[in-house]
């Protein structure tokens, strides 16, 4: 029942100058419970707009989203979000950050503490509870952001280029962590990224979006996430099939970019 359904979503921004920007056009899809979806596309194709709509920060100008049979109207705790820069509260410690959602719900402190410890262990930050977040590295900050989101037990996890700001090594570790969490919790996860490799690794399904107006261009069903759970991510990347799909998508996006350049020239 807890599928995420987008039906004919349309989003048009009106600029202060009166100019209309068509960010999304007629987007429809169904994301089943426990699916791992990655969304890829050239810049300006409306990826982040799509995510903000699902999160409820924006209201679509046409169509609607449904989750658990109810229309999405405003932000909600059942749709957890992880941002590119973590968006941690730097005045709080790691534990207090992870604890944030529970405190807002006013759940009992003793229960919170136990949950926080559990989640810090899952994301590999045990012992860092009292550390101020600004003393953590970028990768550790993203682990805190993951734990802070997951502790609320959301139905859907929305990730907006969560690993974009990390270095290559940390990034790979974090990709494994995301896969592990997906497997262990069985959550529906939607990841937005501009890295083709990451989209392939972290997506059972993959949407490639096209710009002007933003729309779903092509959908892939991919085996790599499942593989990634069993073997090393680097081995997955070496696979011929992985290389073939990567080249196909890269060419597709390259052509889109060319088209945009041609249009604007």
């Amino acid at each position, binding site marked *: 029942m807890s599928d995420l359904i987008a039906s004919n979503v349309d989003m048009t921004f009106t600029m202060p100058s009166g100019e209309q920007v068509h960010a999304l056009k007629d987007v429809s899809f169904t994301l089943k419970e426990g699916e791992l979806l990655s969304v890829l596309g050239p810049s300006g194709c409306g990826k982040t707009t799509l995510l*903000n709509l699902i*999160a*409820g*920060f924006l209201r679509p100008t046409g169509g609607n989203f449904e989750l658990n049979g109810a229309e999405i109207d405003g*932000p*909600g*705790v059942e*749709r*957890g*979000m992880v*941002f*590119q*820069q973590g*968006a*941690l*509260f*730097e*005045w709080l410690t790691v534990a207090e950050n992870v604890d*944030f*959602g529970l405190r*807002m*719900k006013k759940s009992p402190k003793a229960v919170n503490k136990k949950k926080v410890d559990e989640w810090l262990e899952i994301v590999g930050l045990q012992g860092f509870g009292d550390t*101020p*977040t*600004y003393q953590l590295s970028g990768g550790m900050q993203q682990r805190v*952001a993951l734990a*802070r*989101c997951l502790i*609320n037990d959301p139905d859907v996890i929305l990730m907006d280029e969560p690993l974009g700001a990390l270095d290559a090594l940390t990034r790979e570790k974090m990709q494994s962590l995301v896969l592990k969490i997906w497997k262990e919790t069985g959550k529906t996860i939607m990841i937005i990224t501009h890295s083709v490799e990451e989209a392939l690794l972290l997506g059972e399904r993959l949407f490639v979006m096209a710009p002007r107006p933003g729309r779903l261009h092509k959908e892939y069903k991919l085996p790599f996430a499942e593989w990634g759970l069993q073997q090393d991510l680097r081995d997955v990347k070496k696979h011929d099939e992985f290389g073939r799909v990567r080249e196909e998508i890269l060419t597709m996006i390259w052509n889109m970019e060319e088209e945009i350049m041609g249009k604007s020239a």
Partner: protein
Amino acid sequence: MSEIFQSPRGIFIGALFIVLIITLLWAIRFGRRLAKTEVTDLVFGNPQKAMGGYHWVVSGVATVLLLWLYFSWDAARAFFPNAGNELCQVAKVESAVIPMRTTFPFEERLLRGTTLLNRDATQLEILRNQIDSDRTDDAQKAQLLPILERLKALQTGLASPESVAPETVTALEAIAARVDAVAVKLDAAELSEEQLAAVADAKANQHGWGQGSPEIPDDPVTERGAIFAAVAPELTQISSDFVKVRNTNPAFLEEVAALDAEIKAIPKDEKVVSDFGKQLNKMLKRIDDGAVFPPGVLAPVEKSLANLHEVQLDKKGSLNWIDSIAMPGGRILAGNTACSEQGSGRWLPKPSDTVATFARLANPNIGFKNIPLLSIKQKPLAEMVGFLVPDWIADLVPGAYPRHDENGNIGENLKSKVLNIATGNFPSVSVPVPTGHIWDSIMRVLAGLFFGIILGVPLGLLMGLSRLAKGFFDPLIELYRPVPPLAWAPLILTIFGIQDDGKIFLLFMVAFAIMVISARTGATGTQLSKIHASHSLGASRWQILRNVILPNSLPEILTGIRISIGVCWGTLVAAEMLAGTTGVGFVENVARKQSDYEIIWITIIILGLLGLLFDLIMRWVINKTIPWRGKG
């Protein structure tokens, strides 16, 4: 030099001066050595190079103290406690000969006669050009111009040695001889038994330099001083005789009378001509002074004065360099009643005097205007309750206040009892509370700041989040904020009174605007992703405000408080100067009216230290509360 360190204060200051010099030299040497041995970054512009260096702090402090001791003449007074008195006697001689010396080019560039001739010639030339214009007709010119020519001839005639009357020459020679006689007397440096006894008496009974009033005691306490004091009255007499000598002779006086008659004959019915007549008369009155002499006639007096000056310098001896080196930036002048320090010795108070005055003011039993600077006072608790509890609470109690009965007795009921409590009218224990000028100033700042924060921060946050609030309140705040707080002061103090209310309201206005703007900047600067995150984590609006926007604005708010304290402090002092009966600004203002430089400097130092204290506290608070600032 034998009288070095006469008083304990002198010993202390002298020792301090020497210790400071040694400290300064040590710190410089230490710093130079360190710079040589330390492995340093070769690159110019690396800010790391400015770190540390406490020996330079030591040398900076030592330099400031040395400069203060030196320019305030405190060091000079410690090392040469009699120099003030001796220089006072010299000053008496100097001021006695000033009327004579200004006639000659000693301190001036030109002989006074030269200056006068120059000035009068210029003015006669201007007058001639005015007369010789189309403002007068030919007949008038024919009447006025010859008078002008004769005035000029009369003036220049004074410069000719032939025109000088023999009596004048004799009088000037007599003056020169009298000056010479004084010089001989000064050179001989002999004192009578009486004068020696007077010196001994003054030495025994008169207070020292800076140890009473007047600051520099008048009677000579050394023989050297007494020699100068002895000749001063005679020189004063010679000076007054000298200025009476005029360059006049019968022919000159005759011509003056003739010109006077002709000028009086100028018709007064026509305005232009009568105006010129007045001007010609003015010139005549200047010239008939006879203040211009041929240079040769004055030469003997000039020579005698120069000689006297030589003798004076010779007799001053070591005082010459004490005067010029140990007492910089001014000198000691002899007035009509007493000698006084002039220049930096006057307006820069001596550290030792400043400390003594501060010790006197700090004594709570003396204080300033019967109010201590800072002290603890026993105050009944009731008074504070009365201050804190508003009186109108009693009005809310049902019923009526009791009225007096026919015997004049006043009963009590609940309402009147509540009123008694609200007005603080009940017996209670006394508790110690701080009091005094400094405390009053601090409390005013803190009260203004308190109201500024509790009203300004919420409004600022609201303005950062709501278009309505921003648009509505922005004009109000932006219209009153740019006005300098002191420009508001006369109005606010008139409306709210010169007591604490007015000042606190003024400070509230200052702090309020700053707090609104900083809280607003803080709220506006919240990253959207943090707001989004907290929404996704299930926070309500109030929770986001309380847990995200407020902490995120804290750096700006605390910076705002820090700025507010600084501005409030400055405004308060000025407001206290305008009106009031307590406070550090009030003390300084009264001291200003009395030209009491020591108290002025003490208040300046107190204000500086308190400002520094406030700032240090705020820095500490900032470091403790927002170590995460700028690291999000």
